[in-house]
């Protein structure tokens, strides 16, 4: 007997033996009554252009991509746009979307006893086969629990019924998913494009989708435990429930033990094939309300070669891959056609490093003069300023943003942020000269090895930059410093480094405030306790599962939002188990200690990270993989990818800067000697001009560069590539708040 759920019993049977499970959607009136009472109902209403509504009866396996933050944040996420298309392109799969409901909808759903739904067809989360959860930020963990609870899904693997969906997580936080391991049936490490399809196929093959039973009831054809074992055999998939941790007397982590045979001792991240030529995420969903990044996005490059030691994404998404320029141009046009967007962002971790950025931007402008192109992440250098300036047609908008990250040269060498004081000044000079009157500078404090002198150097830089600005804009010139607290991230060289205590951070901020007084200077800093929690959850172990749950029970939600964050709730949740967030966040972890996330690898080896940490502590920098020697991070060996960088051949000329003119003179001699400076071929705008003369002569040099109008179009073209740069004038407009990083 077939269930009466199906409206049309004559519907054609799919080759896979449909019709498939198609429970009725929620009552439209019930949904309407809820949406009619809350703020921004369009967040939960669906129906956007390019959203995909499929007939459930025709689809074997159903995903809901759940993003544990507000619609406006989640819809801006490129990973979600990609996976949505990858899954929906398959006729036998579907993917709907769900975002964390704001507090008003949470209350309304609980009040009306209505479950949280997938946007496309308004079915409760518990009806899906798989929930794909994006975890990119530790302070969304309580939202994840809330979504599961509101969606009618059991919170933990153990508590889930056989009917409940599998909860599968991906994203950069899953490099250490241990603090939420109880709530995740499986975790996908690395890039998900192929893994989601492999998992889908495996799950359908073993019978995970609901089938009609002998009495007409719909049941899954396989037990959850068996499904999990099947998933664990897929490369890159980690099933937390197949392992059990143990701890030492002193509370530190001892080891993780496999509970079943075949559970791999080390899980390495996935790397999607053919990034260079294959583009997913063309028919991007166009939201009906304004979102954070309200534009089309084309990822032109994946990974980053710079090796900043605090940056998790830079370590996680190796190796670097670039889209061929013709692929990028064609894809950008397809995306614009498919969405009707008026703006497209060329995204990556460092778009100015994309070899073909000038060519792609210029060509797009020629082909689509009515559209604007934005470069969301560029660098602190002249090339970036020139590029952003050239593509800006709309007046001299708000502020120009740089991210020097640290104030002193010594500190920037420690974090391997390859930017010199002169470059910062020169970059600022250019931006001021091109008409921006306000500069926003991003810094971190609490970095490993930091002294109060390093912190005060932030104020020095800001004052110097302001001085430059005054020459162009007089009293209108403004420098805004944004200070965040350093958070040690797993899978980076700094993962062993303890965070400063809140008292230390507050003292540093107070000192900086004292030094930053004055007209034209502004200082903003973030809530240090929220960074403390981020670090604690980021470096946490499985004991934190109970803490997260208790905090959620006690009302913690949207912890990443300052207006919601309540440190006291979290502190009590830790203390109830005799744990302390400070132990997790502020402890310097010995290099030989076992780590709760040792079994999960991005491809970069622990040995490399440890070596690089030691290099950092002695102020030694590493060169950008594009032109420096290979430091053996482990990715080529782990993944089989041959990097098109490093020892493949130099892409520019490098010199070791001597003691003269390097750094601010405060760092150890060794650091100054080993500080790499990119010189590049003549005409390369990223060329470093040693600051010998006054600021005026630097400006003159920059001007000369501009007039010559040369750029190194393609790094592949190497040293002799300077071609005349056909003017980038007004091809494109940069994002409202231009940024470099």
């Amino acid at each position, binding site marked *: 007997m077939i269930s009466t759920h199906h409206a049309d019993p004559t519907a054609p049977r799919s080759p896979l033996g449909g019709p498939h499970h198609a429970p009725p959607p929620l009552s439209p009136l019930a949904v309407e009554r809820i949406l009619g009472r809350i703020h921004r109902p369009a967040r939960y209403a669906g129906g956007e252009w390019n959203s995909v509504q499929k007939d459930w009866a025709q689809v074997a396996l159903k995903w809901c991509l759940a993003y544990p933050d507000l619609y406006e944040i989640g819809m801006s996420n490129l990973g979600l746009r990609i996976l949505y298309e990858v899954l929906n392109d398959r006729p036998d799969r579907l993917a709907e979307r769900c975002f964390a409901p704001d507090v*008003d909808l949470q209350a309304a759903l609980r009040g009306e006893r209505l479950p949280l739904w997938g946007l496309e067809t308004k079915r409760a989360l518990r009806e899906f086969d798989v929930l794909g959860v994006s975890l990119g930020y530790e302070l969304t963990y309580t939202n994840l629990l809330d979504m599961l609870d509101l969606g009618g899904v059991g919170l933990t693997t153990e508590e889930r019924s056989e009917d409940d969906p599998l909860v599968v997580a991906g994203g950069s936080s899953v490099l250490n998913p241990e603090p939420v391991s109880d709530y995740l049936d499986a975790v996908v490490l690395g890039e998900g494009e192929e893994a989601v399809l492999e998992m889908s196929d495996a799950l359908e093959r073993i019978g995970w989708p609901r089938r009609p039973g002998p009495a007409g009831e719909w049941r899954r054809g396989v037990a959850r435990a068996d499904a999990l074992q099947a998933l664990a055999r897929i490369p890159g998939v980690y099933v937390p429930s197949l392992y059990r941790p143990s701890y030492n007397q002193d509370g530190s982590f001892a080891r993780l033990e496999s509970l079943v045979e075949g559970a791999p001792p080390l899980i390495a991240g996935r790397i999607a094939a053919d990034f260079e030529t294959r583009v997913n995420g063309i028919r991007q969903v166009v939201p009906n309300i*304004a979102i954070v990044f309200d534009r089309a996005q084309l990822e032109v490059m994946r990974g980053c070669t710079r090796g900043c030691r605090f940056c998790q994404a830079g370590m996680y998404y190796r190796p670097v891959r670039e889209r061929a320029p013709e692929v990028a141009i064609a894809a950008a046009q397809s995306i614009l056609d498919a969405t009707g967007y008026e703006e497209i962002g060329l995204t990556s971790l460092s778009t100015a490093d994309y070899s073909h950025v000038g060519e792609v931007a210029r060509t797009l402008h020629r082909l689509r003069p009515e559209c604007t192109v934005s470069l969301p992440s560029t660098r602190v250098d002249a090339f970036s300023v020139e590029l952003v300036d050239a593509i800006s047609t709309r007046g001299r908008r708000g502020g120009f943003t740089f991210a020097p990250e640290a104030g002193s040269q010594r500190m920037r060498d420690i974090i391997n942020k390859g930017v010199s004081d002169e470059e910062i000044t020169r970059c600022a000079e250019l931006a001021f000269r091109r008409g921006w009157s306000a500069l926003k500078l991003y810094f971190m404090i609490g970095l490993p090895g930091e002294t109060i002198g390093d912190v005060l150097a932030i104020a020095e830089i800001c004052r110097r930059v302001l001085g430059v600005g005054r020459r162009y804009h007089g009293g209108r010139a403004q420098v805004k410093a944004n200070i965040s607290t350093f958070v040690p991230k797993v899978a980076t060289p700094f993962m062993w480094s303890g965070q400063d205590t809140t008292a230390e951070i507050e003292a540093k901020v107070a000192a900086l405030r004292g030094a930053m007084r004055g007209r034209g200077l502004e200082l903003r800093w973030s809530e240090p306790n929220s960074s403390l929690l981020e670090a604690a959850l980021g470096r946490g172990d499985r004991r934190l599962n109970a803490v997260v749950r208790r905090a959620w029970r006690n009302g913690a939600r949207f912890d990443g939002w300052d207006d919601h964050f309540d440190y006291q709730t979290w502190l009590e949740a830790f203390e109830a188990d005799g744990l302390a967030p400070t132990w997790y966040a502020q402890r310097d972890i010995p290099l030989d200690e076992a780590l709760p996330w040792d079994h999960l690898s991005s491809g970069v080896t622990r040995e490399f990270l440890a070596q690089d940490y030691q290099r950092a502590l002695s102020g030694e920098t590493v060169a950008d993989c594009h032109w420096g020697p290979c430091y053996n991070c482990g990715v080529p060996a782990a993944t089989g990818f041959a990097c098109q960088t490093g020892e493949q051949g130099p892409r520019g000329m490098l010199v070791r800067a001597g003691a003269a003119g390097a750094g601010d003179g405060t760092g150890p001699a060794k650091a100054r000697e080993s500080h790499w400076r990119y010189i590049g071929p003549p005409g390369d705008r990223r060329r470093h001009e040693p600051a010998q003369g006054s600021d005026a002569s630097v400006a003159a040099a920059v001007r000369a560069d501009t007039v010559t109008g040369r750029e190194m179009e393609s790094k592949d073209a190497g040293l002799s590539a300077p071609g005349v740069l056909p003017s980038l004038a007004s091809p494109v407009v940069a994002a409202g708040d231009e940024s470099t990083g």
Partner: protein
Amino acid sequence: MSEMRQRWRLIFSRDDDARFLAHLDAVHLWERAFRRGDIPVATTEGHSPRPRLIFAAPLPLGMMAERELADLFLSERLSRADLQARLGNGMPRGYNLMDLHDVWVGAPALATQLVAADYRLTLLGADRAVLEGVVAALLRAPELRREKHREKKAIAYDLRPLVLDLQVRNAPDASADAVLGMAEPAADLWMRLRHSQDLGSGRPEEVVAAIADQLGMALLGPIGSGTAEPDRPAGREPVLPAEIEADRPALEIVRPVRERLWLSDELAL
């Protein structure tokens, strides 16, 4: 600014899929549809030119519509069939193009010709007999003092002359009732409200609010309760339904529809 060579009057409806859009969001949606359809829309003057698409009256967030009007100015002439095809390629979901007419470019603006609009909505929480009593009293009253809020200022006005007609109709039919699964008393309200350049425009939620006041009930629903307004500052203290209902019983608006707009040459007042 580009030249205006042609003016098309679009007649369209909006259904469930797009009803939770605020007017500005809807405008944005149409602009993208024009871009997808590669339609040569004339643009406005100024620093950031906008496509010339002029609506007769903004459609409130939450409301569906059966016959809306907007004028679209083109910078190149297109045949009716061509424009229809291009619009068809990219129409936002939830909007359906019903008809289009070529209008003289120099004709007066739509908004100045608008004189009235018809609305239909379902009310939950009060039965038909009770509503009929209140409606009759309301129609008999010589004036109906209400307040409207403009930038925190309350402005007193008389709603009565804006109400041209007001009727209680049958509750949604039995089949709809079964689908909606409604347990509480329900009735449909139909009204014709004036849109006047001098007197202002009648708003259906104001009429329902006047009824709710008479009944000692709180107004709830996609329009009028004030919680769904898109540009309410993102302060995170939304009014929760439970709080409203704890105070007074609620008169709830569901499925509000603007049935049609009336232009001055269609309806004599």
